[in-house]
């Protein structure tokens, strides 16, 4: 079977790739485009480690086909910082020690940014429910929630 040619935008840059019909977007990102920041923890949409946005919508990239992003705009963890400048969420995660092993961190950061774009002033409960699709086994979530709330506060002040 012939491969599918896909033209898309990833983190603002034009990108082209060939993929099999069955390749997930996560496979494409990791194996064809060398963007290994998105992680595969389950492959079934249960852990959120592969979270990216497609046209601004938060998705598990393991549940999206690579061929589906034709003409779309994909944002991954690799596009979160602007050059040397970390996104406030990234900075707050370091300041608050909101990661231990760090494997869930890219997905959680992408998901949290997506929340703050919709709701710049979330409550603790709103953060907890928004991130309920992102599993972390190390932290018990405490410092993650604090880091997201702190980043939200800083971003509100800056805007």
């Amino acid at each position: 079977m012939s491969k599918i040619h896909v033209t898309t935008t990833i983190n603002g840059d034009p990108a082209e790739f060939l993929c099999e019909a069955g390749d997930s977007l996560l496979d494409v990102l990791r194996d064809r485009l060398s963007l290994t920041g998105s992680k595969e923890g389950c492959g079934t949409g249960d852990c959120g480690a592969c979270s990216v946005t497609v046209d601004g919508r938060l998705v598990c990239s393991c549940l999206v086909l690579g061929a589906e992003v034709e003409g779309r705009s994909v944002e991954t963890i690799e596009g979160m910082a602007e050059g040397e400048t970390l996104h406030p969420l990234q900075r707050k995660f370091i300041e608050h020690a909101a990661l231990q092993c760090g494997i869930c961190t890219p997905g959680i950061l992408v998901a949290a940014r997506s929340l703050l774009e919709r709701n710049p002033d979330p409550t603790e409960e709103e953060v907890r429910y928004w991130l309920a699709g992102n599993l972390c086994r190390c932290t018990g979530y405490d410092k993650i929630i604090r880091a997201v709330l702190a980043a939200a506060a800083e971003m509100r002040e800056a805007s």
Partner: protein
Amino acid sequence: MALDSKQDTNKRDFKIVGTRPPRPDGIDKVTGRARYGADMSAPGMLVGLVLRSPHAHARIKSIDTSRAEALTGVHAVVTRADFGDVEDGATADTLDNCMAGAKALYDGHAVAAVAATSDAVAKQALKLIEVEYEPLPHVTDVDEAMAPGAPVLHEGRTNETVPQGMSANVISRCQFGHGDIEAGLAKADRVLERTYRTEATHQGYIEPHACLASMGSDGQADLWCCTQGHYMVRNTCAAILGLEQGKLRVTASEIGGGFGGKTTVFLEPVALMLSKKAGRPVKMVMTRSEVLRATGPTASSSIDVRIGMTKDGRITAGFAELRYQGGAYPGSPVDMGAMSAFAPYDLENVRTIGWDVVTNRPRQAAYRAPGAPIAAFAVESAIDELAKGFGLDPLEVRLKNAAREGTRASYGPTYRAIGLEATLRTAKDHPHWTAPLGPNQGRGVACGFWFNFGGDTCVSLNITPDGTVTLTEGNPDIGGSRASMSMMAAEELGIPYDKVRTVIADTGSLGQNEVTDGSRVTFAVGLATIEAARAAKREMCRRAAKVWGIDEDAVVWEDGAAKPSGPNAGEFPPMKLEEIAAIASNTGGPIAGHFEVNAEGAGVSFATHMVDTEVDPETGAVKVLRYTVFQDAGKAVHPDYVEGQFQGGAAQGIGWALNEEYVYGEDGTLQNPGFLDYRIPVASDLPMIDTVILEIPNPGHPYGVRGVGETSIVPPLAAVANSVSDASGVRLADLPLSPPKVLAAIRSR
């Protein structure tokens, strides 16, 4: 140079230890740059996949790989026939677990593997491998496996501690304790007898096992993998493949969680063998289903407890008989369960008996304080029930019986300075203890103990020509240890934290290092780091003495500089580290300190946990409302990451108590091999987890450090169960406390 090598914690003002600087690997880990097990690739690499048994127990009559080998794109197929014999029993079991021999012993047991040019070709090849199985009767429950007549996994593995007439699935018996149980029970006002059961849980690291192997025909090999101990991987793979250890270089990737589950090998020997046969690098990555079916969950158990207590709360005797199944091979952590069950208490009469049992389940792997949470669940539940029965304060009862410095531990040794009493008193004084509770809400407490370990450790500290420092150590950074090591090195050298960079070396760069386990890294690698820094300081003092033309004993190290002392004090201005480094070539050559040790003196650690829950009387669902951890850290090097360990252990324990369990069907296959049905706690399940760090210095570490990683998972199972009992008025003795079980108990109240 004069150095106080004794512990100086109490009199010392730390400048860096105890602060909260950013971790050095932080930016890599928030930008996606950090490379984990599955993030590496090599030119020409093949994809390796494993064929797994669909049967819980089956004789492998034949394996025909010819059709798979003939498939275009397949470069190697491996079965057990490719591996030679391994003499050492535990390593032979590891090989058998990585690739089944005569029998498949559990659902998911590896029976063959392929390496092919793509995932699709490899999957197709797996379907072409023809395995002829003869299914055998199976057993997955610990009590059923011990019964005479149970299906037997292995003949002839039972050791001399097991009485005759028991099932061959019973591998060994252990016993600990002192005093006279019956005499102690006779003095009690009440003797409580209960049987508790816990189901197996998985460590649940988010990163599946992954590796990339490259092996040449000359026997030299390189291996990249996610592991808690790449030296262990090297030694184990070398033994299994018949390689010399020095020929196999293993590099540890960043590790996406381990919790004990990455202290052994699963894919690595197979990947090396595939690479050897194919003559190309081979990458293998497990699926989540493979992780749950075929890598280490912890033991499941049934435990009988008898405890006698006087009406004023003194425990007169404690007895527990623990039965743990550790999956298809010997080695459940029942010995550590039996040792730790009553470890928090000062008891005149105490005895524990442990039985190690095999069943048709995946081989257990260590899980954070292996064996201890299960035992603590039983004992702490029983103590709580007795205290409640007498109308006594459960914290007071624990204080009344608490082990202290000088107490003879239930497992033998006499305790040095320990912090249990401090955790209990702090808990009693904490506002959480007296906060009001609403309807259907309850509060529970429990204590926990863990031994902590030290072990073989090797560290090299190099002073660069510009005066910055590279610290090379051999233990994967699983939760911030690079930061802790840099902090201890900077503290000892008297230089800023950001002048030290800590690097995790491959196995070719340092001597043997024990696995990142036993809560050992901050203790043992920290100790070695401090000693390596002291060695470098001695050398730098020697260099300064040489420049100054004075005796080296007349030079001291203070605030990052060599200073003349004694009769020469003030004679020369202090020579800073970077000044000494800059002229090192002219004073004798490069400057480094190193230290190698089998670290002893890891201080035991204790915690008390307090948890509020609300039980929904209509559904049986349990909500955790408030949680506070009180734990002795000896000395918290980086308090953020100490708190993180406390919080993470509590969260895992909450999952074990409420949600997580291995569910086996009638056919012996695992029914819930995914994160949807094997449900670990998510953010909306938990409250903030408050922490109180106590610091009772460990006399065995220069800064007083104790390991903190494991103790925090020991109390929560019982603390949650005690809280649910307080909230609902019913006491459950089987974990997990899933809604159907809780609801049934409430309805039969």
